[in-house]
């Protein structure tokens, strides 16, 4: 398989760590378990400045969730799109199948959400929906990889 759109293998671990840290911190802060300082207070928003959600010293600033979202997307993409240590055509097929699987699963979940959730709670659904395809892909791809590695191990 042509792998010219994949990153080198060394970025995989870095991406996983970034994504995991962002996901955990994002969830903890969203449900008010921890409250970190406003790490992105220095960064203005060129569009829609007045709508910044948090207030620091009387000034409206960015909430940390912007930072977590950026880290989760960058880390998730790095880990999802890095070559495996031994990248070959079979791994490539698993990757493509997982991509398709993740798309089906994502839209199935979204359809369900459209049917079951309405009003303001749907904003929560939309927030999770931004990251779901990436997370579904990562979970499915690595699960299948792990299973086939275990199958090979038992075979020997």
């Amino acid at each position: 398989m042509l792998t010219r759109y994949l990153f080198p293998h060394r970025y995989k671990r870095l991406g996983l760590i970034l994504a995991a840290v962002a996901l955990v911190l994002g969830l903890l802060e969203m449900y008010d378990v921890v409250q970190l300082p406003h790490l992105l207070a220095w960064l203005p928003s060129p569009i829609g400045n007045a709508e910044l959600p948090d207030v620091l010293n009387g000034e409206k600033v960015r909430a940390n969730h912007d930072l977590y979202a950026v880290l989760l997307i960058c880390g998730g993409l790095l880990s999802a799109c890095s070559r495996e240590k031994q990248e070959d055509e079979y791994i490539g097929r698993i990757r493509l199948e997982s991509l398709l699987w993740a798309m089906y699963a994502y839209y199935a979940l979204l359809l369900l959400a459209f049917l079951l959730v309405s009003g303001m709670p749907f904003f929560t659904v939309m927030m999770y929906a931004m990251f779901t395809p990436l997370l579904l892909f990562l979970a499915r791809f690595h699960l299948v990889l792990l299973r086939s590695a275990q199958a090979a191990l038992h075979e020997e």
Partner: protein
Amino acid sequence: MKNNLRVERAVLRLTQEELAQRIGVSRQTINAMEAGKYVPSTVLALKLAQVFGKPVEQLFTLEAED
């Protein structure tokens, strides 16, 4: 598609790992091919033929549903 990779590998006394290294693929790929879960590309089939010193047709055979 059927294949007799396992038999040919046994003849050369190669482990899945050694065969994988020889043709530059992962061990999962060898295992998936032997289990009939994966049909290799022409490139990979020709590499296998090279290792076993046999024509591709002797390693892989079509089945009715192919």
